[in-house]
């Protein structure tokens, strides 16, 4: 909604530029209505909901095992975060304790996933500023991580790693060796990528663009690298350790930057890549022996989960991911509620976008690393107050008809 009081313009110089839902800068559909004057952005309006699939609703109608795969398919980039978060909640309800080795393997995949996700973002960022070569470089490096996934879990994207009470695939010594090797490679490449990002043209495009002050970041409840780049030090892995992060606490530190611009957000991700390489190495060093799951049939385990509820959170690549799970005592779910990181972050877009140039829009949007397949639940009407209006499924359906 255009705020008429605030927008001063001569009628002819201003026009509305629709960005999305189908736009090459956005790999996924969401709609930004941008009101511009020549090159300057005066106002933005954000509309989500194009990929809403009603997963929470679907999960409530399926049994727990089916729901695992459903949560995995909320998103292809942090699929493992979703299943981990979900299964942690189930295990809490059921009082199941996965064996140590399983926790370590979960952590391992988790960090590899962060590696692939961060490299992906760096590539997309380069692509947005027209730097195809850098995009190709980072994505070529990312392929190595995907190869690891494929070898360990059998798929490049949807790992199907987690089962109730443990993990499904074990790590053979050969794979462990390869993982170490790949991590070394990634470290070298990341170093080089870091150099490219510090290079003249790239830094020019990113620094000072899309400022989000610490105060605003706090106010808008942003999470993950977006928050950390605005000076908030907050990381679920440290603050509320899950899986094996408690044991690995000494192997990494939380990266935080003060600047709060797109460059800082990118830099935080690059530095996190170095941290996660340490985590992976530490995890492989300390990897205990033993079983990788409870060894019972999945169907029996599923039936053992009583009625109850739990909240679980993990630090997905894009920030804190929260699951609220309420089981019905049979083998199904009574309620599933997911708070995804992008949804928390996307609200901050409006703050960042107003006043920037058209050329900065893709940069800023990418810098919070939005991937909307999890964020599509609401229609957001955001005025100066930062107020959020949630439109539920019924309303959405009514709107459609």
């Amino acid at each position, binding site marked *: 909604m255009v705020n008429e009081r605030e927008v001063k313009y001569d009628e002819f110089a201003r026009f509305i530029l629709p960005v999305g839902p*189908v736009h090459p800068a956005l790999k996924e559909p969401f709609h930004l209505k941008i009101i511009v004057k020549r090159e300057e952005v005066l106002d933005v309006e954000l509309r989500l909901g194009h990929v809403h*699939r009603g*997963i929470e609703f679907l999960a409530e109608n399926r049994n727990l095992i089916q729901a695992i795969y459903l949560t995995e398919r909320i998103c*292809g980039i942090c699929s493992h975060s979703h299943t981990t978060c979900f299964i942690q909640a189930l295990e809490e309800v059921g009082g199941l304790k996965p064996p140590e080795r399983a926790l370590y393997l979960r952590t391992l995949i988790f960090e590899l996933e962060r590696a692939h996700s961060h490299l*992906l973002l760096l590539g997309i960022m380069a692509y947005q500023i027209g730097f195809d070569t850098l*995009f190709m470089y980072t*994505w070529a490096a990312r392929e190595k991580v995907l190869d690891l996934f494929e070898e360990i879990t059998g798929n490049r994207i949807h790992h199907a790693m987690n089962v109730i009470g443990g993990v499904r695939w074990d790590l053979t010594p050969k794979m462990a060796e390869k993982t170490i090797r790949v991590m070394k490679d990634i470290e070298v490449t990341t170093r080089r990528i870091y150099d490219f990002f510090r290079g003249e043209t790239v830094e020019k495009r990113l620094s000072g663009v899309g400022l989000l002050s610490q105060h605003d970041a706090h106010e808008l409840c942003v999470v993950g690298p977006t928050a950390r780049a605005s000076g908030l030090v907050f990381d679920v892995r440290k603050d509320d350790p899950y899986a094996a992060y408690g044991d690995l606490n000494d192997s990494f530190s939380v990266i935080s930057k003060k600047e709060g611009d797109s460059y800082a957000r990118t830099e935080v991700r690059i530095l996190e890549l170095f941290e996660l390489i340490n985590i992976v190495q530490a995890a492989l060093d300390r990897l205990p022996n033993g079983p990788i799951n409870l060894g019972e049939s999945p169907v029996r385990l599923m039936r053992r989960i009583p009625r109850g509820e739990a909240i679980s959170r993990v630090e997905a690549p894009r920030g804190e991911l929260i699951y609220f799970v309420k089981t019905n005592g049979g083998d199904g779910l009574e309620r599933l509620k997911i708070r995804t990181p992008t949804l928390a972050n996307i609200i901050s877009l409006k703050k960042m976008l107003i006043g920037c140039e058209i050329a900065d829009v893709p940069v800023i949007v990418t810098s919070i690393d939005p991937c909307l*397949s999890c964020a599509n639940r609401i229609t957001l009407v955001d005025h100066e107050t930062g107020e959020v209006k949630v439109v539920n499924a019924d309303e959405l359906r009514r709107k459609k008809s």
Partner: protein
Amino acid sequence: MWKIASRSRIKSPWIFHLNTGSCNGCDIEIVAALTPRYDAERLGCVLVGSPRHADVLILTGPLTSQMMPRVVRVYEQIPEPKAVVAVGSCAISGAPFLGSYSIEGPLDRIIPVDVYVAGCPPRPEAIIRGIVTAVKRKFG
């Protein structure tokens, strides 16, 4: 003469990719197909930004109700001749999202699909093969 035209068409499929509610899994694999490892450009594939430039429409996702009118519009915007490739299991049948109130899919209820590439997500190689198969069949 006609042979040259059809050969050129096969050799230069320009792709427009549309996400109809997918989980990103297939989308990133499509992008991965353009990167050095798979390099779809050696077969002439280029990802274009406007449907008006495209020859091949790649669709992913189970088709949510919000995206449905847009899919139709994009399909109509692509100049003839055009091919449609549905990538991923959820584009083929809507599974595992079938049964949701906001899913209109499967895709082929709305627009004609020439080639289906199964997988969740399919490997980039399979996607490339899907594109090549589609243009060969449609334009050959």
